[in-house]
């Protein structure tokens, strides 16, 4: 693992050095205090808008992700209806699988948290974590079936994918026990909740898909610079969330007492905690590679350094997507601090991608990204 880490860091440093020297000859001068894009050269960035590329990016990179998400959410609604008609073990498993497909489809859009996804906090309506258990329990106290309107009025803490996970998965109960809770006297209310949350989720995702499918979608990028800043900036934030929130924090790597925090894993109830990370990277690959963004960077910021960085980043994406995930329930692995080379590899690979964005792509593509100001303070 140490060797692997060194290779990553070595690649990062050497590519950066090449990049800096080739992007701007003055960077090669060690007496210069400036080693990334400066006020002067960022200012020369084109305010132009490559309408043709932006259309291509939206059509081939972004729209398919939201289309798949909407399809998954429709299937989720259908399976929730089926389950509530007949609360069998098979139907519960089908519903859980549909929920998982929707969760992963949503996680594939994690690097697209701007524009329609964040307008009116849409992303929190789709996936707010952790769910507000007391609000959900309050809804279960209803004496009549719950409606979409009732769930919408309850707020984001009782909506979306995490709320569904809370009622569909329970580590304290067997599947059969959980199934019984849908059959008891209160089971009808619980089922109506699952249906209402699923329908509201589908409605919200439909709005999101419609916004990106609109002929006006390209207006979401004012110009090339905004596109570069958003795609690279949001990719960085997504990767930072993985390393900090989805891995470092639960694993307790930076904990004062080195204690692990399995409840801080995202989707710990369902066991999807590591799958969602792979989905985050798949989404990044769909936009950056299939959407042509890396090729656009290569074309618009031509240099050997860019070529090297782009090839390396694509390779790293593919390797993470193909890597074998840790076996077993993530909660248990983290709780018991079970050493796993797959967990170490996941941490190192995501960190490598994060540094690839920060130290290479952002610099080469002159994107607005900084240690201090990313996300503002």
């Amino acid at each position: 693992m140490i060797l692997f880490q060194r290779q990553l860091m070595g690649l990062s440093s050497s590519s950066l050095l090449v990049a800096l020297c080739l992007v701007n000859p003055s960077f090669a001068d060690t007496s210069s205090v400036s080693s990334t894009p400066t006020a002067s050269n960022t200012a020369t960035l084109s305010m132009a808008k490559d309408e043709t590329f932006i259309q291509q990016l939206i059509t081939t990179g972004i729209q398919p992700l939201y289309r798949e998400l909407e399809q998954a959410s429709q299937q989720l609604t259908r399976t929730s209806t089926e389950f509530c008609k007949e609360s069998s073990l098979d139907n519960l498993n089908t519903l859980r699988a549909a929920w998982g497909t929707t969760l992963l489809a949503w996680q594939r859009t994690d690097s697209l948290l701007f524009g329609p996804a964040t307008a009116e906090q849409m992303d929190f309506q789709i996936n707010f974590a952790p769910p507000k258990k007391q609000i959900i329990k309050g809804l279960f106290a209803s004496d009549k079936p719950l409606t979409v309107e009732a769930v919408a009025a309850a707020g984001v803490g009782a909506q979306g994918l995490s709320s569904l996970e809370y009622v569909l998965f329970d580590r304290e109960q067997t599947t059969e026990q959980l199934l019984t809770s849908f059959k008891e006297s209160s089971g009808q209310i619980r089922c109506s909740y699952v249906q209402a949350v699923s329908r509201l989720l589908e409605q919200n995702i439909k709005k999101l898909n419609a916004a990106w499918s609109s002929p006006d979608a390209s207006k979401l990028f004012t110009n090339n610079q905004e596109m570069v800043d958003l795609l690279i900036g949001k990719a960085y934030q997504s990767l930072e969330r993985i390393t900090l929130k989805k891995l470092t924090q639960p694993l307790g790597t930076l904990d004062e007492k080195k204690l692990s925090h399995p409840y801080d894993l995202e989707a710990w109830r369902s066991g999807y905690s590591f799958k969602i990370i792979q989905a985050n990277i798949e989404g990044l690959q769909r936009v950056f590679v299939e959407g042509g963004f890396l090729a656009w960077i290569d074309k618009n910021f031509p240099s050997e350094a860019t070529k090297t960085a782009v090839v390396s980043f694509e390779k790293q994406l593919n390797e993470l997507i193909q890597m074998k995930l840790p076996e077993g329930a993530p909660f248990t692995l983290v709780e018991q601090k079970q050493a796993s080379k797959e967990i170490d590899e996941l941490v190192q690979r995501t960190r490598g991608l994060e540094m690839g964005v920060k130290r290479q792509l952002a610099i080469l593509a002159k994107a607005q990204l900084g240690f201090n100001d990313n996300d503002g303070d």
Partner: protein
Amino acid sequence: MQRRQFLGLATLTVFGSALAANELLERAIPKSAKLYSASDNALGEHFVSQFDLRTQQLQQQQTPMRGHAALALDENTALLFGRRPAYTCVRVNFKTGLVESFKPSPDRHFNGHGCLSTDRKLLFTTETDYANKRGIIGIRDLSTLKPLGEYESYGLDPHDVQLMPDGKTLVVANGGIETHPDFERRKLNINTMQPSLVYLDLSTGKKLAEYRLPDHLLSIRHLHVSTQGDVAVALQYEGNLYKQQPSSLVAWQKAGEGLNLLKIAPQEVAQLRGYLADIVYDPKQELLVSATPRGHCVSIWSTATQSFVQALPLAEASGISLGLKAGSFLVSNSQGGLYQLQTAGKQTSLNELKIFPELAWDNHLMLLA
């Protein structure tokens, strides 16, 4: 100044040898001179760092949270305020290695800055009472770090707080932005944000005065108070920069007067990318200098002419403090660099003092000399 002048001046002045800078500095260094700042290493671990300008030694204490502003208490001890939304601040002793954490009261989080009373018995911290959507100035006993009470900040998102030279008044930068820990750092009220500069009576918490800027999207974030009671304000623009540039990014309030934006041409303000971080004031030169990380420069403003002067390129400039030598400043950046900015004399120059390649300095820098 036209853009070409901006660039030309920048190009002319950014080159400098570390040797020359260090020679200059050596002549000016008093018996003890240390810089303090939050920092991260390449692994993402968080530290509060102390750099001795005389010995060139760096000392680091790992902290359980990412810090924002540091406040040196004496040569060996410093406070580090957690970056918002923070649930931990620390007091560290560089000599013993002791790190003491302190937490906010329930339903509150720290916002990254704090200051001391004149007698150094009280610590004031900017905090948010997120359950009730209000800004708070927390009051603690500096010796025990235990909370003693709190004041309203009379605005949302108090970010920076400083003690006025009268020792009786606090000045608070209310950034105006609503956030909630449930939504991490998401800005929830951009359309309705109302930043303000508020003066509070230190002994009662009573609001003494409140100032606003003409553009409500200019978040009032960082402050520097002069010994005369003038207040410099570094601003951050929350509008869409791809569609609209702010009219300025620095506000200045001469003691006893109103709060005014300093002038800057539209093509110049565009270079700064809507975001100023740390800011300091040199009364002798009547210059304000601000770290401008998104614009990758250090921006210089004149209070004499009430306008922008120039920007010197520096990748991800982060912290800034007054320098040891007259007419100089010390600057850090997130690529591990420490620099000396010389503004006195005919030519403004920015010279490297030391680079720590595996270290990223965070947004503020404090000099204790």
